[in-house]
């Protein structure tokens, strides 16, 4: 039974087949090569670099000149002391001497910003400590421990020493800890961040919760529209399709601003409600610059991504299935629930996944209409990219987001099966 099959001239069948196909495969590879290179350069590399940044941040031990890009090693004395003394060693005079020497070196190389910013990520307020420390380091006399502490007592903070030790390593998981509202205590153990600094987990949960809600609302709104699209006669369904696609042809900003005009407290909707006497002047509804605004605007923007996959699946469901169910004795509701709905599952899955993933990463709409309560994790990532310039933390947050989405894919595959996904 398990005898190996060979071709007429005795070459194993598998080998012959592989040889026959390899030429065609080489040719195919050659054709997609440009795209492959483009994808590599524009997608894999940047994301890879970003991910690397989330665990590797050498700013404390290497200062990069923004202009020339030249890298200067800094804080090397302190790094030497950390290497020689294990975690938990009380910083002694030698340690302080190394620190003072490094601070003086920072002043020479104008690198106190680089080192200070890095520590500032972990302990807010330390950037100024480093700047003033570097300025005064040249005037300090031994014993350095006393003189430095006399200059500013914060230099004796065990948390600062812990942060500096962690930062000399370069490779660190601290940004992931920060992204999960954790921080390291002075002895290096992982603890919860202070109450008022625990923001990321809450934001992640809100992002996923809101995205799920938006996905669900989109599904509710899209299902009947997609059904209409799939069943109406060609001429009418084409018109409807144009209406569905219209938002794609309008700038995202314009659409979002339109919602602002409609929904703000002095907006069209509130004015009409007041005008109709349904609410009084001081009862104007707050539908903008909060969670409600985010939900409404994002649902509108993401709706086509739900309608299109649903439509493409529904179009293939022949009306004879529902008719068969009806002739077999099912009420129209039962026929819908047991025969029609299950057959639309690939579309629901595809649309749901698409909308959810887009919603999780959505940035511009919540930034414009979300106010304080409607902000999502992506806005926080943008803040870290643009304002605080803590790219490592931004990268860590993004990586967590990416991981969550991948887990979602995996779950979907386990529960429904990725082969049941139909995007068009």
């Amino acid at each position: 039974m398990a005898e190996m099959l060979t071709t007429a001239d005795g070459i194993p069948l598998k080998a012959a087949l592989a040889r026959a196909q390899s030429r065609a495969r080489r040719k195919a590879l050659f054709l997609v090569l440009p795209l492959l290179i483009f994808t590599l350069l524009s997608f894999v590399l940047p994301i890879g670099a970003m991910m690397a940044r989330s665990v590797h941040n050498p700013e404390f031990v290497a200062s990069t000149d923004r202009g020339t890009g030249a890298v200067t090693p800094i804080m090397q004395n302190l790094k030497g002391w950390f290497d020689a003394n294990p975690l938990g060693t009380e910083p002694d005079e030698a340690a302080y001497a190394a620190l003072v020497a490094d601070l003086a070196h920072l002043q020479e190389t104008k690198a106190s910003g680089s080192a200070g910013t890095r520590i500032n990520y972990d302990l807010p307020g330390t950037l100024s400590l480093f700047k003033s420390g570097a300025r005064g380091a040249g005037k300090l006399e031994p014993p350095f421990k006393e003189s430095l502490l006399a200059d500013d007592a914060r230099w004796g903070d065990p948390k600062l020493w812990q942060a500096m030790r962690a930062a000399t390593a370069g490779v660190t998981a601290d940004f992931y800890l920060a992204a999960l509202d954790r921080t390291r205590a002075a002895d290096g153990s992982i603890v919860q961040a202070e109450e008022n600094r625990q923001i990321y987990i809450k934001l992640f949960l809100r992002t996923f919760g809101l995205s799920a809600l938006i996905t669900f609302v989109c599904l509710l709104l899209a299902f009947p529209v997609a059904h209409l699209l799939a069943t109406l006669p060609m001429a009418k369904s084409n018109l409807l399709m144009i209406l569905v696609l219209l938002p794609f042809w309008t700038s995202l900003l314009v659409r979002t601003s339109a919602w602002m005009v409609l929904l703000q407290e002095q907006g069209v909707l509130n004015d009409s409600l007041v005008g109709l006497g349904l609410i009084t002047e001081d009862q104007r509804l707050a539908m903008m610059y909060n969670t409600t605004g985010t939900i409404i605007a994002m649902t509108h923007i993401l709706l086509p991504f739900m309608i299109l996959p649903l439509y493409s699946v529904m179009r293939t469901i022949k009306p004879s299935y529902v008719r068969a169910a009806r002739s077999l004795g099912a009420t129209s509701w039962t026929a819908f629930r047991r025969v029609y709905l299950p057959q639309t599952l690939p579309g629901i899955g595809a649309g749901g996944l698409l909308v959810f993933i887009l919603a999780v990463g959505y940035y511009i709409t919540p930034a414009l209409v979300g106010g304080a309560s409607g902000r999502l994790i992506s806005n926080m990532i943008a803040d870290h990219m643009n304002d605080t310039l803590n790219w490592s933390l931004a990268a860590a947050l993004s990586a967590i987001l990416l991981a969550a989405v991948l887990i979602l894919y995996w779950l979907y595959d386990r529960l429904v099966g990725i082969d049941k996904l139909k995007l068009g």
Partner: protein
Amino acid sequence: MADGAQSDAFVAFEHVQKSYDGVSLVVKDLNLSIAKGEFLTMLGPSGSGKTTCLMMLAGFETATHGEIRLAGRPINQVPPHKRGIGMVFQNYALFPHMTVGENLAFPLEVRGMGKDERESRIKRALDMVQMGAFAHRRPAQLSGGQQQRIALARALVFDPELVLMDEPLGALDKQLREHMQFEIKHLHERLGITVVYVTHDQGEALTMSDRIAVFNDGKIQQLAPPADLYERPDNSFVAQFIGENNKLPGTIEELSGGKALVRLATGEVIDATPVNVTAKGQATLVSVRPERVEFKPEMMPQGAHMIDAEVLEVIYMGDILRARLKVAGTEDFVMKMRNTLGQTRLDAGQKIKVGWHPQDARALDPV
């Protein structure tokens, strides 16, 4: 038809009309009564309104005018799921997300039937179509013929008294189709159900049906048992639609005692049975089946006319020989001869005389 007969009918269409667009009638004044246990076939060319009639009966289309009755009860207002009619669709419409067993369980579940009874019925229905071993397969894992059987079993599993089938064998190959025709017919006889069957395959209609309704242009052209339909077509449409047919245009020369003499355009006179001609001088189309054409004078009855013919070609078809003749100016006059041992062999170019029994030639309306 008399009123008494109408109310006896199991299924009755009375003056039913249907229009989809409010401009044209797809079904024009349909009157049809079907007896209990009958196998009635709707036969007709594409677009003649067969499916529309079936859909009105099943409840998926509403009649624009007229009444449809099932077991004496008007059903125009009854929703499809309350009609209790089994239906087999052309593309089977087996639910793809359910196994064969679940497909069969569906009509029983919606009727609130208990699990034990469900299972015994499903088993019985599957055994009936010899598919007992396939209950756990998905429809996509079955061949066309097997899907067809499951669709049949599903339409029968809840014991409907009336089963509608819309071109159920259209997608099968010839051999399988013939086999399934036999099986459906057999099931019909065994279960005593009433079947309304739609097809545009006349062979299928002739072999399976008790009666055939020939549809054209939204009207029933003839409603008759298969043999009548084939041998005694009421009009030219039916004569041409069912089986092969020779058409000879002419005018009525004499009309008496159920016999007619027809003068052809070329001057010859032939015998015919008048069907829907009423007066001398009327234009008519005489239809003669190829297998009823004779060329041996000794086979002809006394006094019957024979006319000149020239053999154009003879085609060997195994069981029969098919000769194409030039008769009365037309070159596509066909004669079929049984391929027997003693059969006279004709050759192309040979001049012969052909004729037929007067009752085999029917003088119909000219088209």
